[in-house]
């Protein structure tokens, strides 16, 4: 589904990703973990080109991403941000139908139908005419997930989707993500929720200092990490 070859990214002189290669299969759920500043967000953002890679190749569904086809590729890559980034001047429903209508040319009726389905799925149908600032953090994030899903993406990217939430709201968002994973969505999730990673992920990518240090099944990674660096990290967070 996604193939990443020798991905490097520098900000000025600061090399943040130092050659990352991996392959993500269809329906796979990947947890990306690692210490702060290790390049997790940058890794994720290179996949949909919110950051321009310095070098390396990324193919999505067999298509090599270039500057030319990036908009087309992004339609297939849903992204959910730590800070939700809902459009504050649009209602919940308008947030969901905007891109399908304006990017894909879906008719308004079709877009609304799909949006209402998704809102039911994330349990927010009755909020469809509210503005985002009337929602709690957890509700905002569920809307953001629904908004990304409204484009019918083949892959969903999550950048710490629960880090900006009050603890009591983390669960509702994780539950939505879990059922999404169970429905067979391909997902790449940057997260600090170790329990969630362990339970839901098929594979864990451990980044440290711009390197992909470990790439293993969660049982393996959490029970018997190979590297000292992963061990030290787990000692700190678990």
């Amino acid at each position, binding site marked *: 589904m996604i193939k990443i070859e020798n991905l490097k990214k520098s900000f000025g002189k600061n090399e943040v990703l130092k050659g990352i290669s991996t392959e993500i299969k269809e329906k796979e759920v990947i947890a990306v973990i690692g210490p702060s500043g290790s390049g997790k967000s940058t890794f994720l953002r290179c996949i*949909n080109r919110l950051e321009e890679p310095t070098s390396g190749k990324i193919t999505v569904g067999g298509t090599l991403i270039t500057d030319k086809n990036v908009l087309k590729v992004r339609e297939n890559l849903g*992204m959910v941000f730590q800070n*939700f*980034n809902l459009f*504050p*001047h649009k209602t919940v429903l308008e947030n969901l139908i905007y*891109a399908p209508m304006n990017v894909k040319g879906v008719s308004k009726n079709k877009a609304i139908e799909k949006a209402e389905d998704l809102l039911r799925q994330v349990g927010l149908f009755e909020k469809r005419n509210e503005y985002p600032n009337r929602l709690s953090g957890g509700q905002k994030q569920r809307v953001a997930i629904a*908004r990304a899903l409204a484009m019918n993406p083949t892959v969903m990217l999550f950048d710490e989707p629960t880090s900006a939430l009050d603890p009591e709201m983390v669960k509702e968002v994780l539950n939505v993500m879990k059922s999404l994973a169970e429905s067979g969505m391909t997902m790449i999730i940057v997260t600090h929720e170790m329990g969630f990673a362990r339970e839901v992920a098929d594979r864990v990518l451990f980044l440290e200092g711009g390197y992909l240090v470990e790439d293993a099944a969660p049982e393996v990674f959490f029970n018997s990490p190979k590297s000292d660096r992963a061990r030290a990290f787990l000692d700190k967070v678990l």
Partner: protein
Amino acid sequence: MFDFSKVIPSIPYILEGIGITLQIVIFATIIGLVLGILLALCKIGSIKPLKWFAEFYTSIFRGTPLVLQLMLIYYAMPQILGFNIEPMPAAIIAFGLNSGAYISEIIRAGINAVDKGQQEAAKALGVPYSKMMKDIILPQAMKNILPSLMNEFITLNKESAIVTVIGALDIMRRAYVVGGDTFRYLEPLLIAGIIYYIMTLVLTFLGKMIEKRMRRSD
């Protein structure tokens, strides 16, 4: 000291200047707004030559006196163009070009104040740049832009008095003419001052109303 008796018959004549002043200010603002949006888009865009041009344009128009710009257009341009420009169009062009520079800065600041995450969210959804600007960024930027824009409009309304130097018959010019005719300058100038002041108060009030309505729609 005050003797309004000689000036009173001329008050309607001075008041007619309000129309002229408003015409200059309104048309200049429209030009300034269109120009300001274009320049602001150049400034925040990624095309280097356009960026440089917009920056250069702004620094020239902000860095030289408005009166000079006005006189260049009214008195000096005919030398290049080979035909005369009427005072009104000259005033509208000068003020329009000038306020374009100021308005572009207002718009640029308003756009920059919109959370970066909004652009990222739009990009991540595959929204093309022009639609992102039109539907996502500019509507949010308007909230930051509108109050400053109203200020610019009020400033322009007062500053427009300098069109008197090219003989456009605005409030200021008319007061001056009446002064010359009656040999009394104090009264007509006071009347002009009162008119400008009331206009400013009214515009300020309108601006506050608009701001309030926008805040309610939050």
